[in-house]
């Protein structure tokens, strides 16, 4: 079996001290294989967002390790960490986080700008990403003037523009109506299947989660259930994960 792209080992994360101490993650172990789609499901406050932040190297676990393609990420600091995040991950957020008054193109180019890609090259790649999401005609529009679906497609274009290995999607359809949400879902799963990009979706939407290869249920900072789509029973999968 190949090395998992992301691997969490007994990850714990707590906030605050003493009486105010709050354990967001209480020992989570999870392997994510390259190219799979995985849903992290839980209610608000379950720790699912914290797990995503730790996996995306935005937050450091209080204890435990996160390995990226077999390398312990604790050794990554400063510039190396920033570069790794920039090159490896793409982010899709429920609230879009588009700069309202900048053009769609500017927004999509942002990761390339941060990476230090030259002006013409980043424009070419951003336009290609927008083309892929059928938004090329909106490149010059201000982000604030887009519809919800167009906004989320811009966000996906922005996540794609760096050709990442992993896309993190935090409630990607949370702010969209059902029809638009379905389109955005299709786009994400197409990317997963056709381009082999690992897709990690954080959601409380069971229907969206059902389309993923695996569903990981989180409650009170612990993985309570892992369901492989259309294969093994939940019980055995959970046992496997716990053993790992």
């Amino acid at each position: 079996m190949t090395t998992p792209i992301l691997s969490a080992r007994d990850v714990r994360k707590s906030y605050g001290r003493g009486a105010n101490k709050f354990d967001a993650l209480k020992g989570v172990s999870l392997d994510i294989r390259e190219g799979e789609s995985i849903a992290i499901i839980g209610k608000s406050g379950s720790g699912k967002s914290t797990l995503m932040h730790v996996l995306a190297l935005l937050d450091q676990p209080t204890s435990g390790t996160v390995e990226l393609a077999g390398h312990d990420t604790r050794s990554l600091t400063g510039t190396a960490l920033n570069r790794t995040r920039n090159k490896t991950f793409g982010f899709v957020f429920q609230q879009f986080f588009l700069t309202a008054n900048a053009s769609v193109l500017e927004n999509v180019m942002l990761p390339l700008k941060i990476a230090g890609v030259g002006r013409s090259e980043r424009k070419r790649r951003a336009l290609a990403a927008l083309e892929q999401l059928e938004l090329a005609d909106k490149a010059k529009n201000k982000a604030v003037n887009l519809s919800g679906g167009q906004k989320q497609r811009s966000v996906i274009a922005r996540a794609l523009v760096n050709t990442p290995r992993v896309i993190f999607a935090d409630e990607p359809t949370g702010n969209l109506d059902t029809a638009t949400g379905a389109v955005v879902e299709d786009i994400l799963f197409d990317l997963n299947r056709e381009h082999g990009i690992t897709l990690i979706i954080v959601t409380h939407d069971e229907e969206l989660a059902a389309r993923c290869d695996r569903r990981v249920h989180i409650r009170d900072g612990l993985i309570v259930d892992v369901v492989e789509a259309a294969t093994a029973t939940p019980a055995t999968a959970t046992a496997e994960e716990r053993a790992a």
Partner: protein
Amino acid sequence: MKSVDLVGSAVGNTFRSKTRTILTILAIFVGAFTLTITNGLGTGINRYIDDTVAAMGADDVMTVTKVAENAADDGDGPREYDPDAIAGAQEGPPGTTSVVAPISSADIDELAGIDGVVRAQPVKSVDADYLVHDGGTKYEIGIGGFVAGMQLQLAAGEQPDAAASDFEVVIPDAYLEDLGFADADAAIGEPVTLAVTDAERTQHELEATIVGVSEASLGTSASAVPNDALNDALFDAQSTGLDASELDSYAQATVWFDPASPADEVTALQDRLTDEGYDSTTVAQQLGTFKAVIDGIVLVLNAFAIIALLAASFGIVNTLLMSVQERTREIGLMKAMGMGSGKVFGLFSLEAVFIGFLGSAIGAGLGILAGTGISSALGGALLADLPGLTLIAFDPVSIAVIIAVVMGVAFLAGTIPAIRAARADPVESLRYE
């Protein structure tokens, strides 16, 4: 992120909240404008003083008088009569007369021998009776001294040639009309006659050519300035009939020193002259106190401008803090996408510097326009008696310094918000609603 993109982004972000940015720029503008005007005032007046210094004498020259043996302080009581003493030509405060001992040829030789003195020469002061052109009306006129290196402020023509053997003279522009010249240029090359009376009451007339027309200015009175040849001839004519001892007696001498010598060497030379019993004054010293007063006033005005700038810098802090607050999510996103804290700090402090640059460049630009307008308006009216004075003048170096200082102040003001942005935790920022 590349530096050029960082600067580009910072400039772009500056105009995202236009009203707020413009108000901040206005606050800085007021400070920079004031600073430019007050600085220009200092530059203008001091430049005028420098020109005047050049008109009063060369900068490698000092005027030397011999201290009279009975030159006691006025507070010591009445001064004993000394038949050889000469009432000093150097002006003191009204009500006092300075008395100096005569300088003889032997003294001149002694002066020339003092370490640091390049050359010493007696000042041959001439009292002219009148000046006349082409048989017209005779006018009284004073004769000013000229030493090589002096730069008279001329309306036309050129400086008198110290080396020329022909008789040359520069006349003040106040005499032009009365002598019958249409304008300054018309007078150049025309002959004039100067007359002196000697000790035997005989009047001597000497003809000279007008080589220049001088403008009245702060340090010079309306006197004709002859070249050395003419001055010597006038002095000889005036001295006709004096006996040898009277001839060899001058009130002042001019001493040349190395123009490259620094101020402390000049002071040392003056100390040595004092030890030998001579008083000495450089041209710079004559106007030095005046300059110090101007510098003091400009300093106070600049202090007010800097207070205005300080107030404006709090405006920058406020603007950028609001900006950081509004852009929390964006900062979080950029950090999540791998932008380092240093770059985030750079982005916000560059924005502050750019706001500072805009405020100061606009302030300095309009300051220059307003200053130029004011000084040309005043030059034609209130200050018309001081030709050559540009009240508010601008020096590119000091303008550049003002802009740089304002940008520096803006950078310092920007550090507080920029540090706050750089420290923002991406997870916290993205959670921000």
